[in-house]
């Protein structure tokens, strides 16, 4: 039996549960006050602990998760407007602005770039697979 004795196990579990709640419900309207209410008596205490563990406030973390999920959807070739609502944004403007700030380019530029990369992989997989493995697989440069 594994013993689980480290300081503040209970507090850790509450904060981790809050983080997982954000991970699982980022697409919904999340009221971060509710999370704090459920986790601790004090919202201030909750935010401080969350930030200590994840280096972001719950709100900042939620925004990051939404943008990362948006990048996943765009990589899977989902349209920009659909992506925006899928990850819980209510306006395209605020989605695009935040996406650009985090990803360094607009959602549509990101989508286009991912499409180009995919086409490139399909056309010339050897650019992406180290040669030693491609050769073992019997793939030679001349086949492409």
């Amino acid at each position: 039996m594994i013993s689980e004795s480290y300081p503040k196990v209970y507090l850790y579990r509450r904060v981790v549960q809050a983080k997982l709640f954000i991970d699982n419900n980022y697409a919904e309207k999340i009221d971060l006050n509710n999370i704090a209410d459920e986790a601790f008596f004090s919202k201030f205490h909750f935010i401080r602990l969350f930030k200590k563990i994840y280096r972001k406030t719950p709100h900042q973390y939620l925004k990051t998760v939404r943008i990362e999920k948006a990048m996943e959807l765009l990589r899977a070739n989902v349209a920009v407007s659909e992506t925006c609502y899928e990850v819980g944004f209510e306006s395209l403007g605020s989605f695009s602005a935040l996406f650009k700030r985090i990803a360094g380019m607009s959602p549509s530029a990101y989508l286009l770039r991912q499409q180009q990369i995919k086409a490139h992989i399909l056309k010339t997989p050897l650019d992406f697979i180290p040669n030693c493995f491609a050769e073992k697989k019997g793939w030679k440069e001349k086949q492409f």
Partner: protein
Amino acid sequence: MISKMSHVSVYVLNQDSAYDFYVNKLGLKVHTDAPMGPGMRWLTVTPPEQPELEITLMPVTEGMVFTKESAAAMKELVSKGTFGFGVFECDDIYATYEELKAKGVEFTKPPKKEFYGIEALFKDDSGNWFSLGQKEK
């Protein structure tokens, strides 16, 4: 002169299941996921803060690296938990431990203070084990 390590391979029993484990549970990022013939893909993932180190999730199948006999022997060894592939680092090991455990990751050792830092041990979906470490703050 060697300057860096760019790829390391982890031998896995099934790439689909490994994708779920390494990406959805551990939270690693997909670097390349390229088709490489029937039933095989070139799948590499990177730690979130170390995008330059690609971990290749290499299926133990006949034909790539292994003969039929070697593949069978390797599969047995991997699933028995013979191989330890390395150490993952995190900021807060107790939070990471609780999160991974909640996601169904099997730990063989909970976080424990050692002379070199705090360490826990877990297994991947194939049976490979890893150390999870946090440097003392």
